[in-house]
């Protein structure tokens, strides 16, 4: 996510203090306001809005269009509720766990309730994060908040059409604190244990996509299949919604990846370019795969393929060349097509909207190819497939184990599934007493 390199690691190891040394900070703190970079700040604020747009309404439309008519509003309500809930939890707890030094496993409590995110006009001081010293910490915390939101929102795709709304809230809320924030700390906080080992994850291939994908798969297994799964056709309500959502994701992803440069600089520009190239390659690769296997290219295939390409370039965006992005996008498009079709049958889980097939597989492909293709001339770091694999396995195991545990806790608190009659009637009516218009 950030320009983690030898200088960062050295600074962390020596424990230099921002105030005492005036050099690379190792923990959040106050700096003079004139040390901020206005262009970086403006770009980060823009990126924050773009990433929020990916969830609201991007994911809501993307997912809402793929479920049956009777569950569209429940799916959209789930995304909105997750966005609001995770925002409050990030403000209260998540940010402090993820982005304060603490220890290699967890941050400390110095930023609980966003405490210390000060702007002191009279004193001419403003708080900055050691991870993004050129922008106000309030902006950086908000940028990261939108990542926490979208990661939890992605999981919704695996559990739609049968999970109680209250259970979904309990699970995603707990997951955001217990799974997302620690994993973000491991990978993105310079002192996190995976970061110090050299795992490269520019914008969240592991933290966001593998994490959400694996958790979605566990949700699908624990919840069990929807009634009629494998016997009845589950016709998507409106694939036009899904395409509109995919378009918003594509545009918003420029904020996601280029914003993760944490600066309005050449690396951000390159991240934007490779993001677009990978999305295009993913869409074309999926389309061709589908055209060959099924004799027809589909709108859903194109929309899914572009997302696959975007997912896979996410960990690599600040480390690879445009030519590498083309390869990453193309491989991801085909791999995710396989993941959402053949692998899905092999796994025998009703992952309703293929969260694992697209985000899990795409994230794994991207993480490993980052190790293979990371270019030292761009970032100053060399990729290592073995280290990347370690990161993948660590996130995969932790996310799967904790997700299963949290689902069990949720089951004890409110139960997981709606009853059969409610599932038949649809979750729009049974959970919200609302209905789509005719």
């Amino acid at each position, binding site marked *: 996510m950030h320009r983690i390199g030898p200088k960062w690691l050295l600074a962390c190891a020596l424990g230099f203090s921002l105030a005492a040394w005036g050099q690379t900070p190792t923990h959040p703190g106050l700096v003079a306001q004139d040390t901020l970079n206005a262009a970086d700040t403006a770009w980060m604020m823009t990126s924050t809005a773009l990433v929020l747009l990916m969830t609201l309404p991007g994911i809501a439309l993307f997912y809402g269009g*793929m479920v049956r008519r009777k569950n569209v509003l429940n799916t959209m309500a789930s995304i909105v509720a997750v966005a609001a809930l995770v925002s409050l939890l990030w403000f209260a707890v998540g940010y402090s766990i993820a982005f304060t030094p603490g220890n290699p496993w967890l941050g400390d409590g110095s930023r609980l309730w966003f405490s210390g995110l000060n702007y002191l006009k009279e004193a001419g001081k403003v708080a900055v994060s050691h991870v993004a010293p050129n922008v106000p910490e309030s902006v950086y915390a908000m940028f990261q908040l939108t990542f926490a939101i979208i990661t939890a929102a992605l999981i919704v795709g695996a559990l739609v059409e049968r999970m109680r709304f209250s259970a979904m809230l309990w699970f995603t809320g707990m997951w955001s604190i217990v799974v997302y924030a620690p994993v973000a700390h491991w990978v993105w906080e310079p002192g996190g244990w995976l970061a110090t080992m050299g795992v490269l994850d520019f914008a969240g291939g592991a933290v966001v996509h593998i994490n959400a994908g694996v958790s979605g798969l566990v949700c699908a297994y624990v919840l069990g299949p929807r009634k009629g*799964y*494998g*016997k*009845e*056709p*589950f*016709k*998507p309500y409106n694939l036009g919604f899904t395409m509109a959502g995919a378009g918003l994701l594509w545009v918003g992803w420029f904020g996601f990846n280029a914003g993760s440069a944490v600066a309005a600089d050449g690396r951000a520009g390159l991240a934007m370019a490779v993001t677009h190239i990978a999305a295009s390659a993913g869409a074309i690769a999926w389309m061709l795969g589908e055209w060959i296997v099924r004799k027809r290219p589909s709108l*859903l*295939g194109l929309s*899914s393929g572009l997302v696959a390409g975007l997912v896979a370039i996410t960990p690599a965006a600040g480390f690879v060349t445009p030519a590498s992005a083309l390869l990453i996008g193309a491989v991801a498009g085909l791999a995710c*097509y396989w993941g*959402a*079709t053949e692998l*899905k*049958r092999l796994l025998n889980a009703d992952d309703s*909207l*293929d969260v694992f*097939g697209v985000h899990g597989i795409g994230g794994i492909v991207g993480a490993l190819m980052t190790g293979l293709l990371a270019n030292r001339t761009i970032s100053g770091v060399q990729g290592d497939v073995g280290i990347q694999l370690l990161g993948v396995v660590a996130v995969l195991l932790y996310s799967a184990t904790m997700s299963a545990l949290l689902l069990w806790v949720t089951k004890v608190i409110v139960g997981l599934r709606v009853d059969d*009659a409610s599932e038949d*009637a*649809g979750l729009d*009516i049974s959970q919200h*007493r609302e*209905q789509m218009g*005719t």
Partner: protein
Amino acid sequence: MLPSEKIAIAAHLHVLLRRKTGRVTDTEWMASNADYAAEIVRFARASAEKDGHTDLGEWAAKLEATLAPTLPPATIAEKFIGVASTALPNDANQHRYIRGIR
């Protein structure tokens, strides 16, 4: 039958029941939940018989008629005839969304 037509019947029955028996019902739920609708039909018929409200009986019959075809034709075929819509011209589309949408 269109959902809007079901709602219209349910709304009519709702008004009649409110006026003639004092019972308050949930119109949207009546139009979407077969169990609830069946109970309202039973109650409306009982009231019609007991108090001589013939119009209640008529509208209960109309609501009852909406209950049978609650599933789309393809689903009925699969569930009750055991044929997976093989005779339908859009057979490929019927299978397209079984075991996943992609």
